[in-house]
């Protein structure tokens, strides 16, 4: 039901997707911990391209009429999930930075005091 050319395009797209992620991983521009989600997403996309019937039956289980609509709904849902997890990562890092800044300031004061004592 998916035209052969579209399928080919999708396969190439998924392959490119993996190449980009692996490239980033190799460059250490991405942390493997935070990349797992993206890798899983790529895997799901790959499976769906390989077995499109799967997507159709899943979509029908959820009562969605149009295949393309279903695909978009899933894609958007997935992206919202990833954004949420990114926000949570940002919040956690914010907290860590706060603690570090406070500790740094306290150490800075201690160093100043020690230096002053040294001079005396």
């Amino acid at each position, binding site marked *: 039901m998916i035209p052969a050319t579209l399928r080919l395009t999708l396969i190439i797209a998924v392959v490119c997707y993996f190449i980009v992620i692996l490239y980033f991983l190799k460059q250490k521009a991405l942390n493997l911990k935070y990349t797992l989600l993206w890798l899983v997403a790529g895997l799901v996309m790959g499976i769906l391209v390989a077995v499109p019937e799967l997507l159709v039956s899943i979509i029908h289980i959820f009562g969605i009429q149009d295949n393309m609509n279903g695909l978009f709904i899933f894609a958007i849902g997935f992206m919202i999930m990833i954004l949420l997890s990114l926000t949570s990562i940002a919040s956690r890092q914010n907290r860590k*930075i*706060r603690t570090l*800044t*406070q*500790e*740094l*300031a*306290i150490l*800075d*004061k201690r160093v100043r005091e020690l230096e002053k004592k040294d001079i005396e």
Partner: protein
Amino acid sequence: MEQKQRVLVIIPAYNEAENIVRVVRHMMEQAPQYDYLVVNDGSTDDTLDLCRRENFHYLDLSINMGIGGAVQAGYVYARKYGYDIAVQMDGDGQHDIAYLDRMLAPILRGEADVVIGSRFLEKEGFQSSASRRMGINILSALIWLTTGKHIMDVTSGYRAVNKMFIRIYSEDYPMDYPEPEAIVAAIMHLGRVKEVPVQMRAREGGISSITFRKSIYYMIKVTLAILICRMGYGIRRGRREDLQEPRGEE
């Protein structure tokens, strides 16, 4: 017994070059028996230079973290150096050091864990604008609804806390506009929160951190924060004795 308690006055300062020297000098003259700590919250003006030149005790946060992060840095410091009582007092001259003893008294007597300096108990001194007071009353009502405790001046940044709350606040202190939320956290930790009448002055220099434009955002954010903070604790039916750490060794 009373004088053995070590007190740290935390003075958060963000771009307070106009006020900070006067505030700290005033504090050193009026209450030299207490330690103080200016927390420079990544100011972009001369606040840091002034602290350095005047040889004040100060922490220098390399990033601006907002009042919550600055005050918390003070609590972390107080905990690290074993202070018994921490007082937070704005660096803009609104809060008068003359009321310090009055604020410390309930804690020294062991009657309260958190003391809030309140403008509205005796309705003297600077009372803020009508619209601000309305906002404060709404938040006060919200805190009363969610915790059952009536606090009038929920946005007052003039506070004193005992050792137990130095620990609690150093571990977790609300961010952004922390004052009302910190009260809810204190009540939910079964702290005895007490208000003490103080007079405040209108700001002497600089600009208030809350402009009119931000007040809508402020109300929404703080309302949500109070509700979420309250939710986070669930139903509290414990007694004070259940608290894990006893209140000091006194």
